[in-house]
């Protein structure tokens, strides 16, 4: 396993400053943002953010607190309307789409502070994610007609299969709010996966985890990418996770990408060290 983890893909430059793994070359990038930016009043929170993500790429976004990382997630999901720039999801422009529509187009996320539907069961949380794929038969559902049972059985089984990924089937009937912390974080990822995304955004997935849990999370992130063949973009402060799992790392400072490259390149980039430690740190 550790040997496998060290095997990095060859990165290729696609229209500077973007890099993608060689294996995704020749296929359309799944997520493209060009000159994306947003101002809050006079304050520029994000300025000229660019990304092109390969279809199976795992990418990390790091940067000091307040650099604009979560703001970028909010821009990519249309929670904030960008002041400038475009977002293309699988080639389609997301401008003017509602948040729910952007989710249907193929982008899903988890949250820095867990935002599960805590009074609903674990299974119901996943079923909410499946919602847009289920047909609505209001009366059939209420009258419990055969068509209701068929669809219900089908999606409950799907939900449980999804729970199996993290060995959480036994928690299916548990209220989500009663799960242990780590399990809540895993459920958030599963709920997002249920919406069948092409790009999964993880906002500080390792927050509050101990090193052993972080190690497990790293394996899970890779497993999800391999099984679902999707792209994963994550924000993280835990450098062991970022350096361990990401193929491309972008460094954000004051709303701008100041460096981009492989984890090894980033670790040794003086601009990055300066952003984190100040000018003194370079020497």
């Amino acid at each position, binding site marked *: 396993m550790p040997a496998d983890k060290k095997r990095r893909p060859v990165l290729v430059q696609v229209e500077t400053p973007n890099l993608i793994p060689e294996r995704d070359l020749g296929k359309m990038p799944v997520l493209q943002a060009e000159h994306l930016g947003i101002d809050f009043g006079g304050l520029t929170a994000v300025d000229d953010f660019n990304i092109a993500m390969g279809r199976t790429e795992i990418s990390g976004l790091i940067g000091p607190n307040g650099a604009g990382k979560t703001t970028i997630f909010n821009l990519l999901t249309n929670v904030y309307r960008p002041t400038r720039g475009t977002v293309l999801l699988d080639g389609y422009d997301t401008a003017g789409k509602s948040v*729910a529509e952007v989710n249907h187009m193929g982008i899903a996320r988890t949250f820095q502070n867990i935002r599960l539907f805590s009074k609903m069961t674990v299974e119901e949380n996943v079923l*909410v994610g499946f919602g847009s794929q289920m047909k609505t038969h209001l009366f059939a559902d209420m009258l419990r007609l055969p068509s209701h049972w068929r669809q219900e059985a089908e999606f409950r089984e799907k939900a449980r299969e999804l729970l199996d990924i993290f060995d959480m089937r036994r928690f299916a009937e548990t209220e989500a709010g009663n799960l242990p912390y780590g399990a809540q974080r895993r459920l958030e990822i599963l709920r997002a996966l249920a919406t069948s995304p092409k790009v999964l955004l993880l906002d500080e997935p390792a927050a509050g985890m101990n090193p052993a849990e972080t190690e497990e999370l790293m394996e899970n992130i890779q497993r999800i990418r391999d099984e679902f063949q999707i792209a994963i973009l994550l924000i993280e402060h835990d450098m062991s996770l970022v350096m361990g799992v990401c193929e491309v790392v972008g460094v954000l400072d004051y709303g701008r990408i100041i460096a981009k490259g492989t984890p090894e390149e980033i670790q040794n980039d003086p601009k990055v060290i300066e952003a984190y430690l100040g000018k003194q740190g370079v020497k």
Partner: protein
Amino acid sequence: MQVLMQVLNGLQLGSIYALVALGYTMVYGIILLLNFAHGDIIMVGAYISWLVMAQLGMPPVVAMILSVLGCTLLGVLIDKVAYAPLRNAPRLSILITAIGVSYFLENGAQLVFGADAKVVPAFTDVSTIQLGGASLSFAAVATVVVTAVATVVLTLLVQKTKLGKAMRAVSEDMGAARLMGINVNNTISFTFAVGSALAGIGAILYTMAYTQATPTMGMMLGTKAFVAAVLGGIGSIPGAVVGGLLVGFAEVIVTALGLSVWKDAVVFLLLIIVLIVRPTGIFGRTMSEKV
């Protein structure tokens, strides 16, 4: 016999309050809005019944259908016109808007129909049904049965259907629900539709019992139902039903004791006591603020 009659009276009045309280509680559950216009939707439903039967001379079935349909549409319309534009505004703004809508409907009805009470014709010629030697008021029995069925259907809707899951998800975290692909606006409209349809049914049952429509009839009815919803724990479906029955029985008991002038006071006293002992209501969850 006398006791049985009073129990039935209590059940009847309590059921009406419960139906109205269900509408209150559903809307509160999803957007944390105390929809003060909810009682006035019932008033509009009562006027529709009167209009269809007394003015247009159409059969009671048509009146029932049009009342429920009219209330449903009115509820959705109120949300779209008055509340939806304020979705991201402070909660006080939307609360004040609800009071405004309530006044608008009351004064609008007074303008259109006049301030005097309109007599709503009987929906059916059957006035009593015989049950094991006892003769029971048909309106009372119908009210209890309809409310019981409505409660079961509503519970199934919320617990078992996809829309119900969407409603619960939106009620917990609107932002996260959006990001999981739920169309929040449709879900809220649907909630208003269901709550207002219940108000429409409530209007029919109320006019069956009291045969009158007045512009301000929704005011006290709405306030009592609000008390019922808070008593039971606002946001909770079983809470609304239990709260409604409690308020209904309290009124009937006080009236039976010959103290009918005190019945409103007793209801509000009940509210004060419950709020002191159990601020979240009978079925309410204790809210613990995160530190």
